[in-house]
């Protein structure tokens, strides 16, 4: 999960916009997280197929935590934080 601001260390997973196996393009929002009063959509910075999702809806996650893995078109895996 990316940094969302000073003093924000955690957020809760609200929903996924894609599932495992879906193709995503760089800059697509793949997951929405929520703090107490704000939702934030987390984009991927690479294109490829989502090979794994490592967090669940309702789960509290920390800044820097890996959310999903994407099998890039260049055939190596990237982790989306």
């Amino acid at each position, binding site marked *: 999960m990316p940094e969302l601001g000073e003093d924000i260390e955690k957020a809760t997973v609200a929903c996924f916009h894609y599932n495992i196996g879906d193709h995503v393009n760089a800059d697509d929002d793949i997951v929405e997280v929520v703090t107490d009063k*704000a*939702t934030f959509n987390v984009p991927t910075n690479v294109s490829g197929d989502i090979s794994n999702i490592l967090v669940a809806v309702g789960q509290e996650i920390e800044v820097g935590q890996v959310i999903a893995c994407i099998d890039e078109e260049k055939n190596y895996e990237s982790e989306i934080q």
Partner: protein
Amino acid sequence: MNCKVIDLGIIDYKEAYALQQKYAKEVLDGSDQVLILCEHPTVLTMGRLAKESNVLYSKDKLKEIGVDVLGIDRGGDVTLHAKGQLVAYPILNLANYGKDLRKYLFKLEQVVIDLLSDFDIVANRLSGKTGAWVGDKKIASIGIGVRKWVSIHGLALNVNTDLNHFAMINPCGLNVSMTSVSQVLGRDIEINEVKQVLIDCFCSQFGMKKGQ
């Protein structure tokens, strides 16, 4: 920076939401940032953390009185919108303000506090309870949604709202009483009296000038 101020008057919630999406795309593409002002006919909106138990009326009762309950992509719990409540939806690129959700919420609170100060009302923050408060009563609710660091949703300030409407909900899940500008001042204040002050306080807080 210029701020494009768009006054939609009284508008259905879903229509205003569609316009927020439209302007968010334009702001992301580099257009001037936008401040949408409006009022909504009575509606309940459920933020991502909303608990159904905080809606106190039954679904049948809400249907009978014609009040929709909408699930939406903002933070926070249940909120009520109704006529007499000034709603402000800033469509801002938060990259201009340090990409910090908490600081942005703090600045929105400050807009309301400054605005109310213009009416000689002392409003405060309450620790851990985002919004603006007069004593222990809530006068403005705040909740935002952010995509590509562009904000939608915003703040709702009770100006001359019929506060009886709030019996439908447990506002923000907090078991609090709501108040309004009119109630605090003990006289009827019209939305239009508040709009220009809000625009001025908003532009000042976010370092913008009102554009065309």
